[in-house]
């Protein structure tokens, strides 16, 4: 009883086919993370806070030293 075990049992076909399908699924998962999930998360991590100075109330009036990591 396991997530990946259940996934493996869901895959059809003989072993080589299953291996290829599993690799494709893993690739799709990584692609989705790289393309959608990580870019959405990036603004929330502290080391990407590229406008620390501009986080002050004077955001719209005073430019701040930006850019990080």
């Amino acid at each position, binding site marked *: *009883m*396991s*997530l*990946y075990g259940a996934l493996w049992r869901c895959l059809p076909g003989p072993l080589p086919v299953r291996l290829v399908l599993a690799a494709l699924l893993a690739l799709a998962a*990584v692609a989705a*993370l*790289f393309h959608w999930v*990580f870019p959405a*998360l*990036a*603004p929330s*991590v*502290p*080391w*990407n*806070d*590229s*406008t*620390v*100075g*501009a986080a*002050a109330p*004077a955001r719209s*009036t*005073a*430019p*701040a*030293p*930006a*850019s*990080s*990591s």
Partner: protein
Amino acid sequence: MLLRRASSDGGAGVRAEEAVVGLATGPVPGGPGGAVPVRRGSPSPAAVATALLGELLVTAGAVLLLFTGWQLWWTDVVAERDQAVTTAALAEDWRSLASTGAPAAPATQEPPELAAPAPGAPFAVVHVPRFGPDWPPRPVVEGTGAADLEAGVGHYPGTALPGQVGNVALAGHRNTYGRPFHDIAELRPGDPVVLETAQGWFVYLATTAEVVLPSQVDVVAPVPGRPGDVPVERVLTMTACHPIASARERYVQHAVFDRFVPRAAGAPAELALPTTAGAEVLA
């Protein structure tokens, strides 16, 4: 509960538990014929939960590793590609402008006034010979938001435009997203920083550098360090994070305007040299 927990023990244990259960609760639901609802080989809920938790934790670890790889490697790949596309598109625009018989550059070397760029729009290309031949010129876009700094070097809105009296303030990533200002600390006094626009090249020469806190916005004031003063000089200020891969401080490089080279005059000699003529070799 007892019934299920018995399952993992195997033969003798199971039988012992069955006996206990039978004694404690009387006839079991499975019937009197010995059909006890203990499925041999099916793990206990605790074991299942532990296994699932373990899988989730391993998956989370793999995702975090992937995020690190994405941040440190993939953002560079994507940003460098996108910024190269932007630079090429700008060069193409400027070529077509020149070929459509745009008015010849004025004889005077007084820099032309630029129109205010739209937010997010690329309007210039920055050349920094000190950063070496492997450092492609980067587009300068209006704004310093996260998306702007992924698209290239960001121009602080409200600061001077290239050639204007005042302070042209630029921000760039020192790491990730193409890391345009990764080598900002390699700049030495006198190193050229050239802003190329449709009109030509605005040559600035590096002066001093300093490390400040992110809250010290006066480094990008029209007169750096003196907010409120009316500028008379044309200067440029580059900001990047410091130390590398941290947002704790800012590395700030100042530069002063040297001259304007109209497009018709051809690219300034500084762009052909890896460093300023006769200057020290890049360490």
